[in-house]
């Protein structure tokens, strides 16, 4: 038996005693690798379509420089007072915001630029990995979110997405088990809690723009 983490509480002991005393019929754990899932003819186009339906905007560009040029033209950028970018060559970080000691100081950020590792065609989700940084708050604090994702890195479904995040043995013990934080983000923040009418910009980003880089350069759009 593994020793409990906290000094063994009575409730823990009682619960395990009860559960161990129950004789349940065995149910096999299915092998998911044997399954076949939907594959889209053009996953990139499907991703763009899905992003539109969840309220986001996608822009195909050849490279980071083109993304930068496009971003600089956008009203969201020209109206922004404070910005933070975690992607080389796309957007900029306002002076003094690069290494703030407390995330509360990022409360006024207008635009944040993140690099997504990959996207998912079926639902327009983009995986953001924060295991090496504590900028997780920024992606909900910023008024507008800009993502940069290589156009070639689109998985068909969530199964492909988790396969992407797996260790060599197919489990997730190493990568996830080392700790940290990661999220799928699909479109801007939204709510329909008032009479089911959809409002974009609930608590998090009011808009989400995703640059799909057709020829990402070496250190371009990778992890933040």
């Amino acid at each position, binding site marked *: 038996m593994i020793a409990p983490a906290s000094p063994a509480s009575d409730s823990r002991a009682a619960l395990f005693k009860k559960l161990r005393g129950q004789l349940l019929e065995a149910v096999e754990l299915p092998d998911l690798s044997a399954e076949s899932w939907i594959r889209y003819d053009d996953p990139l186009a499907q991703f763009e379509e899905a992003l539109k*339906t969840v309220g986001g905007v996608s822009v195909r560009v050849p490279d980071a420089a083109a993304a930068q040029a496009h971003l600089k033209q956008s009203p969201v950028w020209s109206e922004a007072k404070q910005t933070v970018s975690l992607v080389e060559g796309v957007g900029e970080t306002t002076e003094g915001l690069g290494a703030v000691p407390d995330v509360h100081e990022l409360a006024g950020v207008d635009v944040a630029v993140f690099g997504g590792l990959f996207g998912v065609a079926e639902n327009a989700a983009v995986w953001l990995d924060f295991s090496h940084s504590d900028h997780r708050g920024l992606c909900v604090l910023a008024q507008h979110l800009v993502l940069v994702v290589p156009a070639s890195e689109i998985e068909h479904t969530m199964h492909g997405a988790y396969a992407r995040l797996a260790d060599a043995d197919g489990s997730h013990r190493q990568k*996830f088990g080392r700790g940290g934080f990661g*999220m799928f983000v699909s479109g801007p923040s939204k709510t329909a809690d008032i009479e089911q009418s959809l409002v974009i910009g609930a608590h998090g980003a009011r808009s989400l723009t995703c640059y799909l880089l057709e020829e990402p350069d070496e250190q371009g759009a990778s992890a933040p």
Partner: protein
Amino acid sequence: MTKTAEHPDRARAFVADDARAHWHDESLWFVRQKRDRQVHSVPEWERLRELASQVKRHAISRWPDYLEEFEKNATALGAKVHWAADAEEHNRIVLGILRDAGVKKITKSKSMLTEEVHLNPYLIKHGIDVTDTDLGERIVQLREETPSHIVLPAIHLKREDVSETFHDKIGTESGNADPAYLTEAARQHLREKFLGAEASITGVNFLVAETGGFVVCTNEGNADLGTSLPRLHIACTGIEKLVPRAADLAIYLRLLARSATGQPITTYTSHFHGPRPGGELHIVLVDNGRSDLANDPQFRDVLNCIRCGACMNTCPVYRRSGGHSYAATVPGPIGSVLNPLHALTPRIVRESEQGEGVEPREGEAGDAHGSLPFACSLCGSCTDVCPVKIPLHHQLLALRKTVGDRGLLPWGKRIGMKAAGKLLNSPKLFGVAGRLARKALPVLPRAAIYNRLNPWGVGRDLPPAPPKSFKQMWRDELKQEASSPGDPK
């Protein structure tokens, strides 16, 4: 036994406002239709449901092993894991953590578990300032109501209601009921709360045994704003939210938002593995009656539930009677199974140990929820849409018997059922009753049929009585056939 209001009594006020009840019905049907469109875009939908059910059933079949694995891995990541037998212990643990950290102000993201254990009133009583941050939950919190739906907490309210509440409580313009305006006002109001909070509490959608992490899904981003600002995060969860492997998440994430609101996935799907740098993470695992449910093969599958709300959106009774008529944290079909079970299971467990005839203990009668399994037309739509294949309408039918066996039926049903039982068991009696009814119905004054003793007759009319019984008609038919030459074959 003290008499408590039954589902039809509690639904009365809601039903009385016909226009509003109709509007409620349509709002939910709209969500159901959005779900259908998403479902049709996934060719392997049925296979996913099958797998989702199997993985959950597997996890429950090895429940203690996976719980231990989760605890070990979460602890190795630096989280502190707590175990609570019931609501009272859960609330005590949470308050203890907040007190140790000297915390007075917290934000909460949506968690049905903390509703179930009544955490808010408990913390407020002990001097903690609690702000619900999901928009729907904040609306009902400001109105001092409870959520009427597990995914759409304020679905029973119209924009004018929200406008009035916001005008009173957070100072929005009187009469402005534009959802965009109201949402923006809530955003500003809650930003301040987020930035001022000293700790945050979230629920959990999935615990992953293999990694010791957990996943929280929101559309608004409130769980992420809440947890990324203060250093203390407390995640509260039922012990059944367990999946063995991270790869299993793909199955559930493909099903959850599509079933819930007809979206392909929630906007934010956050994976927490250990506290953030310099932070503190507590995970409170709550039993509160769940462990007993595993023992019963007929009802075990309720532990599969991922709280998507699809069964509510499709339920003709829920849509027309409103969530509050269930007087329970979880309403709708799954609530009509869970609540009576929760009330009755301790007694059923004792019966299995000591034999029949066990006396109910204080507060164990379950009569408050005894009428819920009858708030159902047995149409089976809930079972059809449930993404984890809980046989809801079969369970509801079975529960009617469970409730009946323990004398918890409402009086009117008890007498009616007894009489119907006698009648249907005796062909002779049935024949006599039929003859009488056919004679009496056309000539009886309305008041004799449509009165207090016949709740079924409220708002409904009987069809005209046929001149002959089916039996008579059948006999006449056979006679005729015998006397006329048969059809050439």
